């Protein structure tokens, strides 16, 4: 399908004139008079062919050659209508185009009255070209008009005087101000002239706007802060639309490899030298991305993929394009977003820990660092999804965007985080609990301020969106802290709608690079399809195109030497054992309202385990689970242990290194009081501390009435699992036995209590009966994939769970042992999870879990008049319909009245087939599970990468160097 129709909604008008003046001057010379003819020819060509030929094909040929017209004329009306016109079924399309153009220019339409009469009085097709040209003229006029109306003298004037105050010797502000004064005078004249039908208004308007644009361009681009240095940038196609803004890798041997769009280059523009363009490196099959300049201004660091068969590796070369050197080369690994660190090392994002996003099947990346020659690559971040776009704050911390979710929804869980260059001291920076925008992406520190500029993007979009300046002094979430946005209108979308609200923003901005506190480079859409141009934007409201070329320009970075940021000392020992974590006082901080001192007795350390494999068939939770994991949330949990919280609220615990863990506070009954709903980690050798739970990162710790927290006066607590060694949590393994022993005698099929609630463990294609019923009957209160905001204490989990309340009150003669009760409670507090891993025995069957095939399930559905498709998600209405353990008790069979019928027998035999299948190949919720072959392959790759990581860490410890083994095969140029 043609992407112009999908994405190119014509809304770029306000900013378009910059383009019309730049682009049209280039292209018009050759094609102005031809395009309408070309279009007419196209129509004739189409009509001469067979009737069922695809119209889109012709339009797509046209749009690639005439992007401006495609965008502004073809998209004015619906594609279907154009198809009709193309096919000769509707002759009034041009009339509609004319109408819509007239609407825009309102009072000024009288200017075109005469022309309209002339062209449209002629019937027939022979003067289509003439009509189209008139329509183009009207559209241009309307755009000129919009631009005219939007002319911002104040903004330009403010910028000129600001530049002058900074560079009084280098900048010719007087020239510009004189010209500006002249243009201001003309403005009123032109405005009056426009309504004079006798005058050639469109031309007047165009030339006026063009003159203003020339002045604007000259005044803004002779700003020494932008033109004193050449700017490096890349050209490439915009990443194909895919699952999430982090899906830009199109990794080999992964689900979206064939979405890879090759072609591009790395170039330099020198504004001092008349905007001279130098190409450093070009590729037709590859993609070049993410350039950065070394501190001495002499080297370019970037990521490049040479073809669809290869993945991205990190390269470095001199700024003249010489001495290209490959730094990384791991097979089946994408290395992107490299960034120089002040200690001489390089941080980058990589898929070296091959794992997948939990709400789909896309490979994810974490931050890694390496020495400057590519040696000793080691993992910095372990958060369970994506870590990208690192930049360095003046204080030496790495600022990056992190997509993570623990017991919360997928869409808006992308905020800005910081860590030290050795991966220690991971902390939230901004926006992780803001529901919209879906992601704060690609932030950089603004020199001379405490602020950053960031993309305000969407979840299901490319890594673009609005831009915003964030001052987190005003809060670490929400609208208040976003000082200004580009476009200005985007500000009102903050906090509104959901994770995709920012898809509405036009134009799109990407790759912000702050030059100083007032001026920023970025790449921005220019209104022609998805083409991006390099822009200089400023806080005065000016947005000046610097340069554009097809298919698009990205990543502008000035080539200049700069000071190194602060250098923070290392704390890791690289032994991959443990680190320590303390909390000063769990009662400190927000969202502990109503929790009395003394309530919290324990802290539980839980790991949110990474997803190492996936299936295509899915369960629809709050987002897709591939394979089915839980009713609503996405994760797999592992309890590392539970440690006491001291009287004063302090905890001190030794935590395994390199694990993505979170903490829950428990009361005397080991019931959850509050949960973190985000993750953290310690590196080996690191001691990390928090003041309280959900402590406000803008405050220093309050004084406590003792010299040190109680917990710190003892050695760190050891984690010792949970009723056995630490293991991932499976409902069938950990909880079902409690139900079997205490509940199933009544709550079973054929029993009266079973009509209310089935607690039997009979497996069905998705989970088991008890699991489905407890969710359907709402006797538990997990938060599922809950909202972005931090939740109040006691608001979810075992405390508000009906099941637990009833059992505590006393239910019939049920008496649960302490352990049995704790198993139920803990399961609910773990967000009522089901499967203990993302691997599967049945990757090709329904939900990735069913022992019987989709075909069999369809047949069973027909026979029993049951829509199994509708049962494949958390919105299902029906209770469990199949029991593989006791096929004859399967509720769906009730739909077949005649138990002796062939239908009944066939249905029963399908279910029985499942029973036999499960006995042969046990599922993950059974003993004896064996992963599928695909899982094994993915796990093997994971394990290989883990070994490489250990080799690198050993090398760091020994003071040696270990490189990607594939490096020996790369030819150093």
């Amino acid at each position, binding site marked *: 399908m043609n992407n112009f129709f999908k994405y190119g909604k014509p809304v770029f008008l306000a900013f378009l004139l910059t383009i019309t003046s730049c682009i049209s001057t280039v292209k018009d010379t050759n094609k102005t008079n031809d395009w309408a003819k070309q279009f007419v020819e196209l129509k004739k060509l189409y009509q001469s062919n067979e009737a069922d030929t695809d119209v889109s094909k012709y339009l797509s040929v046209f749009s690639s050659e005439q992007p401006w017209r495609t965008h502004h004329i073809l998209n004015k009306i619906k594609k279907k209508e154009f198809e009709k016109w193309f096919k000769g079924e509707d002759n009034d399309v041009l009339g509609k185009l004319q109408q819509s153009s007239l609407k825009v220019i309102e009072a000024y339409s009288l200017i075109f009255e005469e022309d309209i009469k002339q062209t449209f009085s002629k019937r027939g097709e022979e003067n289509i070209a003439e009509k189209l040209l008139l329509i183009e003229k009207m559209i241009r006029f309307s755009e000129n008009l919009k631009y005219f109306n939007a002319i911002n003298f104040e903004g330009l004037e403010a910028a000129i005087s600001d530049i002058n105050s900074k560079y009084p010797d280098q900048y010719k502000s007087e020239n510009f101000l004189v010209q500006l004064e002249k243009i201001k005078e003309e403005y009123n004249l032109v405005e009056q002239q426009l309504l004079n039908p006798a005058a050639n208004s469109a031309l007047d308007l165009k030339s006026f706007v063009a003159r203003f644009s020339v002045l604007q361009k000259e005044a803004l681009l002779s700003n020494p802060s932008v033109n004193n240095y050449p700017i490096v940038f890349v050209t490439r196609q915009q990443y194909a639309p895919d699952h999430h803004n982090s899906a830009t890798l199109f990794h080999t041997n992964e689900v979206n490899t064939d979405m890879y769009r090759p072609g591009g280059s790395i170039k330099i523009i020198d504004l001092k030298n008349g905007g001279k363009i130098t190409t450093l490196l070009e590729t037709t099959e590859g993609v070049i991305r993410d350039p950065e300049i070394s501190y001495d201004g002499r080297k370019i660091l970037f990521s490049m993929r040479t073809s669809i068969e290869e993945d991205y590796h990190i390269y470095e070369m001199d700024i003249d394009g010489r001495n290209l050197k490959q730094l990384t080369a791991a097979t089946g690994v994408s290395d992107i977003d490299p960034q120089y660190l002040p200690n001489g090392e390089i941080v980058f994002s990589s898929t070296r820990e091959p794992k997948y996003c939990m709400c789909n099947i896309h490979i994810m990346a974490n931050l890694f660092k390496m020495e400057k020659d590519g040696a000793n690559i080691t993992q910095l971040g372990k958060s369970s999804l994506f870590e990208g776009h690192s930049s360095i704050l003046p204080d*030496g911390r790495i600022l990056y965007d992190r997509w993570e979710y623990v017991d919360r929804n997928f869409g808006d869980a992308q905020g800005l985080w910081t860590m030290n260059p050795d991966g220690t*001291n991971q902390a939230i920076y901004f926006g992780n609990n803001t529901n919209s925008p879906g992601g704060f992406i690609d932030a950089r520190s603004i020199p001379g301020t405490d602020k950053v500029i960031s993309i305000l993007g969407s979840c299901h979009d490319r890594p673009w969106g609005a831009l915003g300046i964030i001052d987190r002094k005003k809060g670490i979430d929400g609208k*208040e802290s976003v000082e200004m946005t580009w476009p200005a209108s985007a500000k009102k979308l903050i906090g509104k709608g959901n994770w995709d609200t920012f898809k509405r923003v036009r134009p799109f901005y990407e790759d912000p690079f702050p030059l100083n506190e007032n001026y920023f480079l970025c790449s921005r859409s220019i209104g022609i399809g998805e083409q991006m141009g390099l822009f200089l934007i400023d806080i005065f409201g000016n947005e000046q195109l610097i340069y554009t070329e097809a298919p698009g320009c990205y990543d502008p970075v000035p080539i200049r030497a700069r000071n190194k940021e602060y250098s923070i000392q290392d704390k890791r020992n690289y032994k991959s054992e443990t680190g320590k974590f303390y909390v000063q006082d769990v009662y400190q901080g927000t969202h502990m309202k109503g929790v009395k001192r003394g309530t919290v007795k324990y802290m539980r350390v839980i790991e949110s385990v990474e997803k190492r494999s996936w299936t295509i068939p899915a369960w629809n939770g709050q987002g897709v689970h591939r394979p089915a994991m839980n009713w609503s949330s996405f994760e797999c949990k592992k309890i590392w242990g539970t440690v006491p919280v001291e009287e004063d609220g302090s905890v001190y615990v030794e935590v395994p290194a390199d694990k993505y863990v979170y903490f829950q506070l428990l009361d005397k009954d080991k019931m959850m009081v509050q949960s973190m709903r985000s993750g953290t980690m310690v590196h080996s050798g690191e001691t990390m*501390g928090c003041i309280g739970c959900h402590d406000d*990162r*803008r405050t220093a710790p309050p004084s*406590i009435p003792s010299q040190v*927290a109680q917990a710190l*006066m003892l050695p760190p607590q050891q984690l010792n699992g949970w009723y056995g060694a630490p293991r991932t949590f499976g409902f069938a393994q950990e909880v079902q036995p409690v139900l079997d022993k205490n509940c199933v005698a009544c709550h079973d099929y054929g029993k009266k209590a079973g009509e209310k609630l089935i607690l039997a463990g009979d497996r069905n294609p998705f989970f088991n009966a008890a699991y489905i019923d407890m969710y359907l009957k709402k006797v538990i209160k997990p938060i599922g994939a809950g909202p972005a905001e931090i939740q109040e204490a006691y608001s979810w989990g075992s405390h508000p769970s009906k099941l637990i309340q009833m059992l505590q009150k006393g239910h019939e003669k049920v008496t649960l042992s302490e352990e049995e009760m704790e198993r139920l409670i803990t399961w609910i507090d773990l967000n009522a999870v089901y499967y203990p891993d993302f691997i599967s025995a049945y990757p090709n069957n329904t939900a990735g879990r069913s022992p019987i095939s989709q075909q069999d399930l369809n047949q069973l559905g027909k026979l029993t008049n049951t829509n199994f498709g509708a049962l494949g998600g958390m919105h299902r209405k029906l209770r469990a319909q199949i029991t593989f353990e006791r096929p004859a008790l399967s509720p769906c069979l009730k739909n077949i009245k005649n138990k002796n019928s062939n239908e009944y027998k066939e249905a029963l035999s399908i279910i029985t087939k499942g029973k036999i299948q499960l006995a042969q190949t046990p599922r993950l919720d059974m003993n004896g599970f064996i992963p599928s072959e695909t899982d094994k392959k993915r796990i093997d790759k994971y394990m290989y990468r883990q070994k490489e990581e250990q080799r690198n860490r050993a090398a760091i410890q020994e003071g040696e160097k270990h490189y990607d083994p594939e490096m020996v095969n790369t030819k150093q140029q």
Partner: protein
Amino acid sequence: MKKIFYINFLLLILSFTACSYEGKQTMSPTQIVTSKTQHKLFVADETANCITIIDLENATVSEHIKLDGKPGGLVLSADETKLFVTLAIPQGRLLEIDIATKKVTRSLKVGHTPLAPVITTDGQSLYLSNQFNNNISKINLSSFAIEATADADREPVDIALAKNTNTLFVANHLPSGKANADYHSAKISVFNASTLDLLKEIPLPNGSNALSQIAVSANEDFAYVTHILARYNVPTNQVERGWINTNALSIIDVKNASYLCTVLLDDLDRGAANPYDVACSADGKSIYVSHTGTNELSSIDAEKLHSRIENISKGTQPTLYASSLKEIQNDLSFLQGVRKRIDLKAKGAKGIAINGDQVFISMYFSGSIAKVDCGKLNSVKHIELGVQPKPSQARLGKMYFGDATMCKQNWQSCVSCHPGDARVDGLNWDLLNDGIGNPKNTKNMLLAHATPPAMITGIRASAKVAVRAGIQHILFTHQPDEIADALDAYLSGLTQVPSPHLIDGELSSAAKRGKQLFKTAKCVKCHSGPYFTNLKSYNVGEGTGLEEGRKFDTPSLIESWRTAPYLYDGKAQNIKEVITTYNTNDKHGRVSNLTSEEINDLVAYVLSL
């Protein structure tokens, strides 16, 4: 490296631009006063031992008044004909200088290290603080004699006079009391200005220390005092989160002589370390604070600040974090929109003087006076005091010791815990070098290099090792060797300050008796040699909790008169407690058979060292 270049560069510039002054004396301007009638600045210089007079008309040095010792503070008489200067030396003096003749007209012997002369409007009386006598004196300027002396708390370093209420607000540099107490903080002492009766002691938030300067607003509604607000309850790895030493301005309600609140001068990710001086503009609109650690000037909008504080006390300030006056002291974004930070582009910001629309800040290490235009805060100019000679390694070390720009996010410098020429802050800190949860009292850096090993636990083999570990684990940074070497040079070159317990430089008779007891009680067994330590570790039974049974390094007793509290966790408020209360089974000196008088003699001796 960068910093060295910077300084050298600065010196180079100075050598070209400044006029020379008596050869090659290093200049270290501290306090400044302005003469409005003569349009002059009088600058006290701590290493050139002089008062430098700057003519503001042409912004040049016009004259120097040479002194016999280092000036501590200075004040002009109301008619601006006389300048009173204290000599901050053990045998402290107050000098009266005739401005016309530049001659010392009268000289008065006062206490140990006199500072902060303040004069009454009628010109009758002058107040000063004797830092190491822990007291203040009132001088009758007619008779030029001490009229009264009164005890402050510990190391009074600045005095502010509130004329309307006839009260003196005295900033005590350090906390007194036990370091392991629930509350441990330096105070403001309030005196009746006529009688020197102690009216009140105003406690500041827990952890307040290194109080520096205090100033009263033009309308005398408020007094402002600069200090560090130490978060000593949390382990020191929390510097990573931007704390440990936060930098504060406490506000006192003058009329009621009561504490109002404490405002943090730091930003969220950027400390404003080591606030030194504070000055209020005559129009009441601005408060200026100099930051020695970051070489900055804070310009605070006083009206906005107080309306914000008022809104918080009324509960009408919804968008900020702090929701009560008490929470302000923890709010790192409280000053947003209220304060501007100005980089003074030279090293060692200290004393402030305001003259009309101009603010002058002395730059201790650069040897210049920064001039900031109130209307145009970003333009900083410098008046050079002369040709600053190339700094010695020790002087560079002193500069690095106070340089918070070396620390991650500029939160603190070495001085933050070792104020007063690398001495002590009186607090216990939980450094991670010996595990967590076992805070230790700050040690004096005097003789640290001469008495290995270092740290109370002796965990670092030498002070050199400790200096390098401190850069890594307290400042959280890598620095080139030159910096650590310079720090070594500075610290090993520190000189002992004579004890205020000496009488004319000699042991008192009690101390003489104590000297004998020091031997007989076997103190000398471990506290032996020139530095009163045999450099070995012992378990004298003081350890409790995680430290029970632990051996500790024998500390030097030199300057123990100024290093209270004592023992590894500062549990002993004074030396007497060390040898009695916390001396179980005579393990820390055989004193159980001594009379109480003998104990006092022994204490007197130790405090005289």
